[in-house]
């Protein structure tokens, strides 16, 4: 069971079993010896009550790789992803008191990261154009065989051509492994909408890159600018 799934760890005004000295006293006097054992929700509660950033630091350590991955997959651009994920973590740090505990902390973080990515993409049209540049799409591992790297490029290029809503649904559900209900929270839409976007997105993707039955890739033009409409 992950720390976030532990029972009895609601984000509330109730005191943590450990570390109360730090929560109510001078932030410098943080009893940080236990943060690694706390659930995500308990860390959020502790951060909201003020512990000098120790609890949030642990949250960052736990989730930074996953949030970076979703940012990369959402923007298809490492620079934009880096800026967005930094902005997202700072925003989460500041807005932690807005977290009410209805969803998992990871879901809440996903939402902030995705919104930061979309904000970046929308505000910076030049960056949107870069995201469509195959040369900057999720760079292949140099250890990849050529064909595998090429296939990755083709898939990412096809993803970039999908409408934003479909692309995000596929990133969250099929690539990040979120459940439909979690993705619905992240995207702020109904679960049925998430499913619909997944189905439509997969069909569109299959149409773009060809069926996985050996038929050739097709319909991939040179322009792969991400689409803005859902």
């Amino acid at each position, binding site marked *: 069971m992950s720390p976030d799934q532990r029972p009895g760890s609601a984000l509330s005004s109730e005191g943590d079993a450990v570390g109360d000295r730090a929560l109510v006293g001078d932030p410098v*006097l943080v009893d940080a010896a236990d943060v690694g054992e706390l659930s995500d929700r308990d860390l959020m509660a502790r951060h909201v009550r003020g512990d000098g950033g120790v609890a949030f630091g642990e949250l960052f350590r736990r989730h930074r790789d996953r949030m970076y991955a979703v940012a990369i997959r959402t923007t298809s651009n490492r620079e934009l992803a880096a800026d967005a994920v930094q902005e997202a973590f700072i925003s989460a740090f*500041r807005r932690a008191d807005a977290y009410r505990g209805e969803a998992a902390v990871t879901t809440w973080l996903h939402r902030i990261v995705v919104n930061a990515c979309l904000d970046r993409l929308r505000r910076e049209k030049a960056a949107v154009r870069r995201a469509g540049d195959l040369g900057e799409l999720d760079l292949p591992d140099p250890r990849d065989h050529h064909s595998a790297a090429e296939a990755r490029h083709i898939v990412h290029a096809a993803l970039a051509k999908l409408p934003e809503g479909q692309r995000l649904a596929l990133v969250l559900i099929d690539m990040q492994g979120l459940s439909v209900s979690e993705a619905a929270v992240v995207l702020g839409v109904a679960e049925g909408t998430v499913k619909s976007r997944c189905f439509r997105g997969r069909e569109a993707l299959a149409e773009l890159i060809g069926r996985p039955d050996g038929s050739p890739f097709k319909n991939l033009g040179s322009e792969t600018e991400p689409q803005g409409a859902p």
Partner: protein
Amino acid sequence: MTHLHDDPTPVEHDPTGMRELLASLPDPGPMPEDLVARITAALAEESRAAQGSLSSQAARVVHAPLAAADAGSVVPLRPHRPTLRHLGVAAAVVTAIGLGGAALGAWPSSLTGPIAALSEASSADSEAGAAPAAPGADESSKGGDAEAGAGVSDLSATDRLDGVTIVMSGAEHSSDALAAAASALVTTTYPTVTPLTAEAPGIGPIATAIGARTCADALGISPDAGILVDVSEVDGAPAAVLIATDGGARTAYAVSRSCTTRSPMLIAGPIALP
């Protein structure tokens, strides 16, 4: 093809095979270390700013920073007078996040003889006290002595973090006269910039303590050396003059503000100072 929003088909059902294809794509990998350091520094600054606000402007602790976030800023450089208490808070953040080798320490708000202040940094840290280290933090932050306990580990981390001073002289240096410029920097009082900030778009990483230390590493400067950085101009272009003090010897460099690991972007130097 149209799908109703109440379509009972499970989302896993995928005759196109695209779900499996997408799931099989390799993970982008871990967050790069430089980005980890950047965000760590930004969060530490946030924490420090929040604690400062708590003590003096409680009503604006949450709402004022949110406005900045909505405006799309990452983390602005802001005037700040670090206190011993703030330094302890920031040290706790950096330690908890597990940033070995990051820069954090004590800096006076203005210096008379910045180099002299560098040599006093460790004693200032000792007075500040160190927050205990988090067990969940990366091993790199623990000073390599797990048996010694959290207090000793944190002291080790703090020892690595101090000794960076950043000033903005406003001078326009010449690479041909670097030695004279650097000597003047050592003996002249300039307003300091709080080093523990996120990278500012207009300045670059060199104005952060972490960035300065990373640049120093790229230049081959000992991590034990004191570092003075003047964010200024060299030969008419944005740059920085970095002076390292190690064992009483001072060495000056002129570097680009983008100086970083494996890319020091040296403009001039090293020049040994008298």
